[in-house]
């Protein structure tokens, strides 16, 4: 079963502060381990919301607002898709991921098949 892990942003990420060499090394190490375990299907980081936009639909009215558009802790900063045997496995990977990127929140969602 596939799970999507989405980790949430923080002030530094929203301010477009680049990751430290230690952070880069920690993530790189973790990604290598996860890839070697065979469960990683996809993973991407997502830039500060100032680079993007938000689209809202209210009845017939469609509004587009350039970023930044929300508080850091409400925005995702990246995702990964894992092919694992159980939700608990996805959770274990999420714990390691949180430690490596310093995330305070990760959502773990079952991918529709």
């Amino acid at each position, binding site marked *: 079963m596939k799970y999507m892990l989405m980790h949430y942003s923080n002030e530094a990420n929203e301010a477009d502060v680049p990751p430290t060499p230690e952070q880069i090394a920690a993530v790189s190490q973790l990604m290598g381990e996860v890839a070697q*375990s*065979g469960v990683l299907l996809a993973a991407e980081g997502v830039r500060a919301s100032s680079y993007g936009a938000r689209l809202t639909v209210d009845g017939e009215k469609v509004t587009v607002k350039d970023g930044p558009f929300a508080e850091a802790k409400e925005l995702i900063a990246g995702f990964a898709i894992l*092919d694992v*045997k159980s939700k608990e496995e996805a959770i274990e990977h999420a714990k390691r991921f949180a430690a490596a990127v310093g995330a305070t929140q990760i959502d773990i969602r079952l991918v529709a*098949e």
Partner: protein
Amino acid sequence: MIPDAGLRRSIDAIWRIESPKVVARLTRLVGDVGTAEDLAQDTFLAALRRWPQSGVPDNPGAWLMATARHLAIDHLRRRDRGAAKLAQVGVSPDRVEVDFDADLDDDVGDDLLGLIFIACHPVLSPEARAALTLRLLGGLRTDEIARAYLISEATAAQRIVRAKRTLAATQVRFELPDAAARRERLPSVLEVVYLIYNEGYAASSGDDWMRAELCHEAMRLGRVLASLLPDEPEVHGLLALMELQASRLRARTASDGTPVLLLDQDRGRWDQLLIRRGLAALERAEELGGSLGPYALQAGIAACHARATTAEATDWGRIAALYDALSQVAPSPVVEVNRAVALGMAFGPEAGLALADELVEVPELRSYHLLPAVRGDLLARAGRHLEARDEFLRAAELTRNARERQVMLDRARQAAADAERPDTSR
């Protein structure tokens, strides 16, 4: 202290992630896989006893590896008091000194590779290899293996026990094969992975979930191999083949459970992520000069389908060329039947029939129902309806699948009707 259900599930998940590395390291330390698995079980039990009290450690993998190492050293001390053996694990005979970090990070890949080569050793039968691989590298429990293969748990357990016994009897020890030995042993490994995959691919929608899960286990193993052996083109070729075929899993059954042929499938249901990954793996195989490997060629054929946004857009000329290469590199009667189909699609039914007619003489294909099915289809497209009808009836006779039989009988009826029409009858 017995862990509660939630904690137990977490520990199981952690073990599922970490056990291959633990078993691999233990096998390297003690030399034989049977002892290694026993020590691994002890390690797991130690976690089950300790963690409910102390909490799950921040780095559970490191805890498990260190505990396993302790157990291995104890075992080696008991088994062989010689200083030489202890020196191998960096221990002086006087006191046990374990540097937890020394070998934790390096050689994990080598450990896994050594274990894979043991589990897939050619001295074992293919089913024994599959069961052992799923257990040691997939972390599957015996009951899960049993459900996947539709055998009893006792049979599955026996298969694994016998496999370990055979390995012990033939003195198969942990070793890191050099490049030449690897090249020689790799086909056996790839064969096991693809066997597991096909077992899962054959699962139908009513089957136990564990059966279909075998496809995913095989793909995970394929990805592990790709990370351990990044320069082996057929490893990437096999991974490409598996991911490209798996991309169609969601589209191959209709809502009522009937199978849907590839050319009739709703391509909107094909998994684009798996297609992207499969095409990337194929490209890696080709970059490594492996485009003529059997797995890479089959992946190339699957890629032709994956790239076509509609059935009509399929590059049949390329598929025919790939089957041509496959028939030289890894010939088999079934490859020839598929080649006839491709020729018929690329160059017209007469081209397909030129080959299919020859295949009628091949002994191995005498009871292969797809040959008359293919001939029937080619004959119908060539306007030879009465002959087509005869072939479809023959295919209906040969197939053991009730749905297939019905499809063949329907086609026979259609061919007979087409034979009656004045403008098409021959």
